[in-house]
């Protein structure tokens, strides 16, 4: 028989087995964007599941496939967690057909989230383009929940059109802890809000860099302009955190799809400080 003496003593963990979660609620936040409230079927996991804002799950449907999706609910929420999903590929199209009571499968959480503990006592600025508000909403709700731990919160959210502004019913709650400003690329007649690009919101609120951290998530095209404006305003690279999107298959640094120069987006990211990616031109595209 095969010699077992060479087997490692510590049991190996099989990272590729997902856990089942049930859809409790689903609603369409914007055209092609759905918001799911979920709970794990396993009561132990439901109780003990913990994560950091900015971390992601490998979400799958059996027979369809698997994709990385950021958690959009705060870690302070017990018993359930939430995902916000934009219809983009096979899996997300299939996810959009789910109804309450249906299941999906998840493994994780994976990656590094926003270092909120290190930001205690600081003002926070959240800059979100489109669906990028999803991972930031986890951090915003966390900061709102732990209100006394942080200074003033400022949420800047840009979207294609007013229909695509996300979580609009939560802005009033957020405003109790700070300020929420939105802007859209284009709007139908009658829109009374801002029209333009998201850097215009930075000009509007004109934030001071002292004792402030910035959390960013959005499409790559947004990064260059937002980072340029923040630099002009005097923000340091160590205080700006960005969540990167990449193709991922494993979530544990083995499949190689998410590599940017010398880091794995799934392990050292998806949240990285601008300091960490300085000089890596392929990171911010």
């Amino acid at each position, binding site marked *: 028989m095969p010699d077992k003496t060479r087997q490692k003593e510590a049991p190996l963990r099989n990272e590729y087995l997902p856990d*089942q979660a049930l859809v409790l609620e689903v609603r369409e936040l914007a055209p092609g964007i759905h918001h799911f409230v979920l709970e794990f079927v396993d009561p132990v996991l439901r109780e003990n599941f913990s994560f950091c804002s900015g971390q992601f799950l490998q979400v799958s449907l059996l027979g369809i496939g698997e*994709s990385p999706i950021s958690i959009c609910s705060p870690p302070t929420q017990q018993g359930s967690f939430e995902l916000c999903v934009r219809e983009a590929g096979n899996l997300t199209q299939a996810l959009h057909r789910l109804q309450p009571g249906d299941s999906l499968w998840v493994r994780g959480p994976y990656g590094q989230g926003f270092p909120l503990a290190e930001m205690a006592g600081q003002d926070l600025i959240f800059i979100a383009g489109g669906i990028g508000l999803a991972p930031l909403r986890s951090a915003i709700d966390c900061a709102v929940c732990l209100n006394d731990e942080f200074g003033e919160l400022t949420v800047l959210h840009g979207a294609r059109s007013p229909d695509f502004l996300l979580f609009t019913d939560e802005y009033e709650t957020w405003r109790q802890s700070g300020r929420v400003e939105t802007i859209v690329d284009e709007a139908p007649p009658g829109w009374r809000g801002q029209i333009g690009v998201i850097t215009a919101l930075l000009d509007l609120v004109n934030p001071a860099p002292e004792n402030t951290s910035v959390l960013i998530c959005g499409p790559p095209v947004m990064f260059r302009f937002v980072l340029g404006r923040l630099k002009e305003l005097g923000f340091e690279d160590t205080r700006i955190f960005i969540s990167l999107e990449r193709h991922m298959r494993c979530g544990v640094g083995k*499949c*190689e799809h998410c590599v940017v120069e010398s880091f794995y987006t799934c392990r050292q990211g998806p949240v990285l400080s601008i300091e960490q990616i300085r000089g890596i031109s392929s990171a911010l595209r």
Partner: protein
Amino acid sequence: MAYGYDAHPALRRWLLELAADYRVLVPAEKGGNRIFQEVGTTDALVFGLAQDRTVLPAKKAFLPPEEMLFEFSAGRILPAMPLDDTIVFGLHVCELSADRLLTANMTHDRPDFHYLVRRNGGIIAGVSCRRTSGCFCEKTGHDQIVPGDFDLFLDLDGCPGWDSAGTGEQCGGGAKTSVAQPRLIAGSAAGRKLAASAPFPLENATGAIRAPVAAASSKTWPLDELPARIRDSFGATIWDDLAARCLGCGNCTIVCPLCYCFYTRDETGLAPETGRRLRLWDSCQLLAFARVAGGHNFRESRSERIWYRFSHKFMRMQETLGHAGCSGCGACFHFCPANIDPQQVIADVLEVTDSA
């Protein structure tokens, strides 16, 4: 001259005996190619051909080109259990060295369950090599192995039918044996145990086993410097020149003993609620490798994909694991339809970054 079953029928009997308890893979001829095949299915085992490399490397024993992660049926998941009973027989020094580094990589950070179950339960046995044309293991630091990197090693040096005159160098663990027959060198307790029934004299490994020395013109590479050199070469025109020649076929990654990237795919039967999740070898040289749902491609240009492959091998693996992710086997060159030679690529990198 090559060496095989003809020269030593007892080798065949021993391997077949092992095949009663193990899946035994040996490099054997099939359709004009050298392929790792199950010992019971082939009579064409041969060592020491001038073109002595297999099409797929030995990694396929522990990281199959396609494997099941789990099955599912009616909303339930049934994990796949990888088999842990493989002996791979007939690896060259560079292949044994590559196996050590691939295993280190799969153990590093978050261990890979499926690979490690197979590898930890597996046995690897090396064999003398005569240097295959286009190989360069001494340049990448994969030209020697120590006990622990292998379970057994079949030293053919001095055997009748084993012509080492081509290089005039021996490939073995110590002083040339005067006995003109193969000897087995045990590098682990598991190897010693298997060798108990072997038709060869058995010795314990006492030190490193080296690949035969290359031609005198061969120059080693500054492996410690290469990470910085590769990093500095990002965007250099050498990568555009390579992109103009490269067909983007991905052959180089498939035949590489140290490439391991994969993708996953779900398969269903006629009933969509029953099926399985597979993982399959991928290639960073393919256009869609870094493309996300929605269409954005984070590595759209071929020159960047080629740089990425070399940076993985000579920058990232060197930095995180302390060894270059290139064994120097030369398979990528041999199987490249565009004749892209990694030795020339590194020479070019060194040249364009020399002034830096």
